[in-house]
Structure formats: C-alpha cells, structure tokens
C-alpha cells in the first residue's frame, strides 16, 4: 500500500507537564503537513490533529466553562470551527497558537453572557489526594473551588491572560498572538487578573 504523505509520527506526549512548551518546531511542521493534507481532501488527517491537540483544547475550555459537560461541547465546537476555517490558517504562527485563538474566542463568546455551572468531575476522575489527610484534602478542594469561582468572575481579557499563563504556561508573546494584543497589554491584564483575584477571594471569604 502506498504510504500516505501526510502521515506523521507523534514523537512525544504533548500533555507532558514536564515539557510545557506549546509546540516545538517539528510539531509545527507536522501540523502544517496535516493541515495541507486536510485541504487536499484527506479528512483522516484532521483526526490526527484532534488527537494531538484535544487535551490542550479541552483543558482550555474546562478553565473557562468550569464543568466537564460544557467543556467537551466547547472543545468540539473549537475543532469544528478550526476544520471549517482550515484554509485561513496561513502558517505564520504555530498551529497550536491558531487553535488556541479559536478556543479563546469560542469560550469567551459562548460563556461571556451567562454564568457558569461550576462542578467537579466524578470521584474517579479527580486527582489522587489519598496521601493527604482528609481535612487537608477538604480544605484544598474548597480553596480550589473558591479560586475557580473567582476566576470565572474576572473580566474576559484578564481571565484569558490568567488561564493561558498559569494553566497553559504559555509565554506572554504567544498569549499576545492568541488574544490579539501587545505583550505589554497581556502583562498588564495578567497583573490586574491576579490583583482582582485577591479582591474577589477576600470578598468571598
């Protein structure tokens, strides 16, 4: 059988928290190959794109939505929009940056006008805190819920800056590309997000 020209090898687990960089040069090249294959009519290539990016996209959506159900719906919407707009991807930035941009826009547009339903995942899906004492675990869980609720009340741009910087560990210049502002504006939004988070947590307690 003739090998498919767009076939790429996923050389590492992109969700590895020890290697938080958004995309290496070879990842970006692979993504471009996959995009070109999609545009030539190979829809299976998009399955590979989904496989490579689904965790990042889902986590982004989860940070905005606050619950699994909405996060998975939003993540699906992000991929659909990406598929429809593949021809607009010029390759000037990394594919992951382009995808993050769609993700942030989808999340902010969809969730901006309504309150989020903050829930936790099923017990089986929670991180393993068994090593902790029960009271410490409870305290930690409560604190995390408060922080999530406070983040949900931040203005859109501050929220986007905080989510992308803290939870996705993206550099400020990449965040600027994603949200379409300057690096200075991203840093200012991040600063105000942290400052407002303190105020919100204080008022909640």
């Amino acid at each position, binding site marked *: 059988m003739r090998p498919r020209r767009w076939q790429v090898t996923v050389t590492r687990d992109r969700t590895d928290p020890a290697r938080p960089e958004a995309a290496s040069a070879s990842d970006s090249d692979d993504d471009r190959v996959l995009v070109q294959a999609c545009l030539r009519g190979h829809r299976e290539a*998009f399955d590979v794109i989904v496989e490579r990016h*689904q965790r990042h996209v889902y*986590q982004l959506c989860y940070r905005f939505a606050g619950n*699994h159900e909405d996060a998975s719906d939003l*993540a699906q919407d992000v*991929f*659909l929009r990406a598929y429809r707009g593949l021809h607009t991807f010029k390759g000037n930035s990394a594919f992951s940056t382009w995808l993050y941009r769609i993700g942030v826009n989808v999340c902010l547009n969809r969730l901006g006008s309504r309150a989020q339903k903050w829930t936790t995942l099923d017990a089986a899906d929670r991180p393993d805190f068994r090593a902790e004492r029960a009271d410490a675990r409870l305290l930690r869980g409560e604190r995390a819920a408060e922080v999530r609720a406070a983040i949900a009340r931040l203005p859109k741009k501050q929220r986007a800056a905080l989510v992308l910087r803290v939870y996705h560990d993206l550099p400020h210049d990449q965040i600027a590309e994603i949200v379409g502002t300057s690096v200075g504006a991203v840093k*200012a939004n*991040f600063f105000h997000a*942290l400052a407002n988070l303190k105020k919100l947590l204080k008022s909640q307690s």
Partner: protein
Amino acid sequence: MRHLSATEFVDFIESSGTLTPERVRHAQTCTECVARAEALRDMRTAALDDEEMQPSPLFWDHFAARVSAAVRNEPAPAPDMSWFRQPAITWGSVASIAMLLLAMAVWRATLHAPAPVVSLATHASTSDVVLPVPEAAFSDDVDADEAWAVVRAATIDLNWDDVHAAGISAHPDDVENVALELNADERHELARLLDADLKRKGA
C-alpha cells in the same frame, strides 16, 4: 523612586530578567512594592494549586470519535484561493485577457469589413483595362505568407485554458482554419492591424 508598573511587577514575580538592576533593587527594598509582589505571588500560587482535572481516559476516544463524526457531516474545507488575489497575478491575468480580447476584436472587425472599393471610373473608357492587383493577392498559400506570420506569432503562445476561462470558445486550430478562408488582402489587413497594435504596446 517610582513604584513598579503593572508590567514590571509581572516581570519581577516571574524573574524574567528584563528589569534593570535599579528596578530590581527598588522592588526588593520598597515596602509597598514588596507587599504587592508578595500578594501577586500568593494569587498565582493559589491559582496553580487548582490542579488540572483529567477526565477518564475513555473520554478521549469518545471525544475524538464525536469530533470525527461531526467533521464528516461538514463539507470539505475549501482550498486557499488567496494566491489568486495577489496583485501581480491579478494584473497579469487582466492584461493577458485584455490583449486577447483586443486581438479578437481586431480580427473580427477585419473579417466583416466591406471590401475595398476600387474605382473603375478612370478606366471605364478603355476596354483592355487591367486592374493593378498585387502579386500576393493571388497567393493562397498561408504558410508562405510572411505577413500572416505576425498573426501566427501573436497567437502561438496563447494559453488556451485562459482563453476558455475568459469565456471565448476558440480552439487552437480555429485561427488557421479562419486564415484559410481569408483572401490575401484580408490577411494583409489583419496582419497590419495586429502588427501596429503590438508595436504600439511595445510587445
């Protein structure tokens, strides 16, 4: 010394190394800036403490299948046509089509032009009148006709796909076929017009 700005605070708590030594010294000694930086670090730590929640490993297969099914209901993504909007290509196409249309217009006008009127009045009195017909007029050998070479040269490099795209239904042999139907005078006139037009355009 003034306190740190918002962006400087971010650079400071992230130890980005972009602050000048003076600004770092201020951030480390100014009571107000120290307190603010500490508060910012605390909030960043609080946010980081909310660890990433991973859904069940089974979810990913289900999710990928869901997206795949949704994508298959979509029309295939359109290829990028932005190259067509590049100025050089656009103007080149317009110039080629304009040139072609001009050549066709001249050709058709020549084909349907009235035959040149030859006045016989001055020769009416003579019975043995002989009209001065150029020698070339008797020649119907198109290939040997040097004037017609101008027309052939003008059309030989035409891209017939472009011609069809412009809505003109002509085929590569049409020019030669029509040429065979022209008489020598008509061919001379068409060649003259095309030659003049090409010279005017500096082609």
